[in-house]
């Protein structure tokens, strides 16, 4: 590099006057560090500006000295007072336009900790909520199961009472086709209560339903149709709604949906 030309170009003046871009500045600074002649020239240029400033010196008003010293002392006090423990006290108000960078760092750290903590608490709370919802759902399902169990238990109790009743008769109904036992009726003549239990009854053809009859004095009396739902629940007992005080036989026939006034296709019969 031609140092003399470099100096003559005025780049050093542009540098000292602060008119260069960051990149240019770095470039000149590197050259200045490398060549002592350039460094000397820079100092000479700076000196001329220092002279200019000094010659033109304009003393600030006398009160400024104490005012500035107070400001500096305040800065110092802040530094002394500002222990980490008390950081939270210092956080709320942005007082001075310029705070020490570590103090800012402390504030940011406090803010960050607070944000992170809040976030953690929030997510914990959400998590607990979810857990609570899961537990609530579980409790609900347990309660439902319990209700079912109670219902089943009551049914069994009734069946037990019914079976324990000495006046209860058992009527076995047999399939008309092969005489195999296909259903039972428990009947208490005195009380008129009757219960029906079905065993492995096939589902009726589509559009058909089973219908229960009691034969009184040679005539079939309608006891109502049997729900297909009931047919599926093998072994379940169904209380017969009507009060039956007399009869010679129970029978089940296959009828059209909703039932017929008289049986058309008898499926099973059990004599009393």
């Amino acid at each position, binding site marked *: 590099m031609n140092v003399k030309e470099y100096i*003559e*170009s*005025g*780049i*050093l*003046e*542009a540098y*000292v*006057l*602060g*008119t*260069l*871009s960051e990149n240019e500045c770095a470039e000149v600074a590197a050259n200045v560090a490398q060549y002592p002649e350039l460094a000397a020239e820079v*100092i*000479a*240029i*700076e*000196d*001329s*500006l*220092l*002279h*200019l*400033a*000094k*010659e*033109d*010196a*304009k*003393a*600030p*008003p006398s009160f*400024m*000295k104490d*005012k*500035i*010293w107070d*400001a*500096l002392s305040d*800065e*110092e006090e802040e530094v002394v007072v500002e222990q980490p423990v008390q950081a939270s006290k210092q956080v709320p108000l942005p007082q001075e*336009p*310029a705070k*020490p960078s570590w103090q800012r760092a402390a504030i940011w750290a406090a803010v960050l900790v607070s944000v992170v903590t809040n976030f953690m608490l929030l997510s914990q709370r959400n998590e607990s909520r979810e857990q609570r919802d899961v537990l609530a759902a579980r409790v609900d399902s347990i309660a439902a199961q319990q209700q079912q169990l109670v219902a089943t238990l009551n049914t069994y109790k009734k069946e037990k009472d019914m079976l324990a009743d000495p006046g209860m008769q058992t009527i076995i109904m047999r399939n008309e086709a092969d005489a195999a036992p296909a259903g039972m009726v428990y009947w208490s003549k005195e009380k008129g209560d009757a219960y029906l239990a079905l065993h492995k009854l096939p589902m009726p053809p589509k559009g058909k339903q089973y219908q229960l009859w009691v034969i009184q004095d040679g005539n079939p009396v309608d006891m109502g149709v049997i729900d297909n739902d009931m047919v599926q629940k093998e072994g379940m007992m169904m209380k017969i709604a009507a009060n039956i005080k007399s009869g010679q036989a129970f029978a089940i026939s296959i009828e059209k949906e909703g039932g017929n006034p008289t049986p058309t296709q008898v499926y099973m019969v059990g004599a009393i």
Partner: protein
Amino acid sequence: MAASITYTEQELISLLKQKSKQGFDYLYENYSAALFSIISRIISDEQTAQDVLQEVFVKVWKGIDKYDSAKGRLYTWMLNLARNTSIDKLRSKGEIMKGKIQNDEATVYDNSNLKTEQEINTIGLRDTVAGLEPQYQVIVELAYFKGFTLDEISKTIDVPLGTVKTRMRKAITMLRTHYKN
């Protein structure tokens, strides 16, 4: 009083690092006028200039640990601090930017360049270097006291970049000659 003592730059720096009152007294006695002068050149409002002076002292006080003597002298560092703080203050008030925009537009109209120079002449280096011709004064003024970049100066006064630099060189050389005498 501090006035009777003379500290070297190194001594002053270590006093400042200790945050000593002596250090402050010395700094204030010897540098406040020069700093205030440069601030006042950039900022015309007296109250704002005083605020900036205080800000500069606070920056020196707090930044002394970061000051690197290898990168320049303390005085230069402080003057640049004063200059940059002042220019930042002006910028934050939008004054300089307004001026720049106007000047960019003004390059279209020849006569407004003249106006810029005239304005600057009245507030520039008139007391100090009477001999400095307006074409040099304006460059020092825009660069040092208004924070314009080389490119902006070139556009503002409608002179090529290279010429701006050589005029800078000439202006500073004149100042140097002046102070040698």
